[in-house]
């Protein structure tokens, strides 16, 4: 199968969906003249014109608010958040408007739009340009939240997100943009709300997503050399969450570890732990373990950032503790 980068995969998704449906357009900062700060919009302005690939002022509330208005009135906007960290600027638009309109107005209209949010640690970008904030959004009814770990799902989930009639937040990890992976030719659609068993195993279930998924697979490799068989689940969507896949795996392996780059406290791992504690505690032969960042802002200095990061070794060590 052909291999392309994560960034190219998102480009193909945009290109195909904008070709298929002329209501789809994209707006955000620095996307038209330079093709996005991570090159993830390169070529789109030339192909679709600057009316459908729009540079905006530095006005996040206006970007998201206007996308909501356009979505309500017949368009299917994709809004780029530049860095996920700047979503704080437009939180009212996200959680009081975008997320609630469909329910609050009795289902009269949907808000079919996508927020693309590059997140995560890269190049010591420090406290305001490095965060993983996905867990905030799983606490908000009305939003779908997807978070791919590889080029195939990057393409498949973005296409599904654009076609979805609910608002979808699409987290794309900055450190993934240049990674390569196999992507099938032709139509690629990944289902929203469906996790994937990325590696089968029998001794422990390791749930992860996004950039941390790759680290989790490495941890599984390390442990394979120690005769521990790890089943890796790539969540892909964190809201609505795919309980069935997680519970089925835990029923088989009897152990559960969740790993993510975001701070451990109040993270996605906490929700998964709670689900398994409520609905699958009898499956468990060991306590549930979460691996995440410490409860601190992201520090700048290299040794501190290194210490902050989740690594394959930290995940492997957590799993060793279960046996």
């Amino acid at each position, binding site marked *: 199968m052909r291999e392309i980068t994560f960034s190219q995969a998102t480009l193909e998704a945009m290109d195909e969906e904008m070709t298929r449906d002329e209501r789809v357009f994209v707006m955000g*900062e*620095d996307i038209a003249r330079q093709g996005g700060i991570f090159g993830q919009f390169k070529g789109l302005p030339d192909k679709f014109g600057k009316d459908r690939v729009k540079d905006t002022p*530095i006005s996040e509330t206006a970007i998201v608010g206007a996308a909501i208005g356009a979505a309500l009135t017949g368009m299917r906007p994709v809004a780029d958040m530049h860095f996920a960290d700047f979503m704080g600027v437009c939180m009212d638009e996200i959680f009081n408007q975008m997320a609630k309109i469909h329910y609050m107005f009795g289902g009269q209209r949907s808000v079919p739009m996508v927020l693309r949010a590059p997140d995560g640690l890269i*190049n*010591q*970008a420090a406290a*305001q340009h490095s965060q993983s904030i996905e867990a905030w959004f799983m606490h908000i009814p009305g939003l779908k939240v997807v978070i791919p770990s590889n080029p195939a799902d990057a393409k498949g989930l973005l296409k599904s997100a654009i076609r979805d009639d609910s608002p979808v937040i699409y987290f794309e990890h900055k450190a993934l943009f240049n990674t390569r992976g196999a992507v099938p030719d032709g139509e690629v659609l990944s289902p929203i709300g469906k996790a994937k068993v990325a590696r089968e195993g029998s001794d422990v279930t390791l749930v992860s997503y996004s950039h941390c998924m790759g680290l989790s697979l490495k941890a599984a490799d390390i442990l394979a050399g120690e005769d521990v068989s790890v089943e890796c689940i790539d969540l892909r969507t964190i809201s609505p969450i795919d309980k069935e896949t997680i519970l089925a795996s835990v029923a088989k392996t009897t152990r559960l570890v969740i790993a993510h780059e975001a701070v451990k406290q109040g993270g996605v791992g906490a929700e998964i732990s709670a689900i398994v504690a409520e609905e699958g505690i009898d499956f468990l032969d060991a306590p549930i373990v979460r691996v995440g960042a*410490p409860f601190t802002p992201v520090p700048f*200095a290299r040794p501190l950032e290194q210490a902050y990061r989740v690594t394959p070794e930290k995940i492997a060590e957590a799993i060793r503790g279960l046996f």
Partner: protein
Amino acid sequence: MIIFRKRGGGSLSAKKVKEKKGLNKYPRTLLEQFYRTMLTIRSFDKKVEEKFLAGEIPGFVHLYIGEEAIAAGVISNLSREDYIQSTHRGHGHTIAKGADLKRMMAEIFGKKEGYCKGKGGSMHIADLSIGMLGANGVVGGGFNIATGAALATKMQGKNNVSVVFFGDGASNRGTFHEAANMAAVWDLPVLFVCENNQYASTTPYMTTTSVENIADRAAGYGMPGVIVDGNDIFAVYEESQKLIDRARRGEGPSLLECKTYRVKGHYVGDPERYRTKEEVDKVCESNDPIDRFECTVLDGKLFSREELDAIKASAGKEVEKALEFARNAEEPEISELFAGVYA
């Protein structure tokens, strides 16, 4: 609108130059301070650029090169007790407010002796002890903080002012409008200083902003809006002085728009595919604030070339010392990661 001004203009006599610029009223020490501050910023940022490109400095770095007259001119009107609020492009403001170059450089290198113990980096340098309320990684994050500092000074019965620097791009954040209105309705001593360098990252000013001048917006909040050539330190100094004095008298906030140009890429390493080299060269050739200062004081026979060179050399030496300090400084211990989450 970019203001071009040719270097030189040697046809005026020294006396005329002095009169025209009103240079007679400038104490020599102030002129020297202008020059030293601008040169220190210039050589500091050149050094940072060099070391970033050499792989010694990580993270994101935004240079102030070409905009030095704004920080140096405005902040020359402030005392240590006045506040400034800076941006992602903050080295210049920080230096002009009197920060320690060694601790700045150490922070940029992520070292323990840095201003923020290595936790912040270039985009997050602060020195609260000299009224420097912080650089900011979030565009437009500083407007309301500056307004709050001005509110506090007023409540505390002090007559200090609060100056917030911001870009043309930042003026499109809602925070600008909210801060401007609140500062105006409460007559707070805030000076909003727009550094209109014609670009917000990849987007030219006129493609994202509905008015030709950011200063035009001041009227909407009932405050004065003044436009100045941001590469002319004398003009920046004089206009900001009037507005700062006004704020100190309790007459409320105002907005100073400094027209300038971002000579360097948005950040070090910017491929700059959104503009041509010719455009940049054309502006640089004629409009460098340090060159312009030199021409003026040389024409006016206020300083000799040798005197200027001596100041330049000593500024360069300070930056070298800062670099040495930063390189030799220690990295933070891992325990620092967990320290300081709460007060």
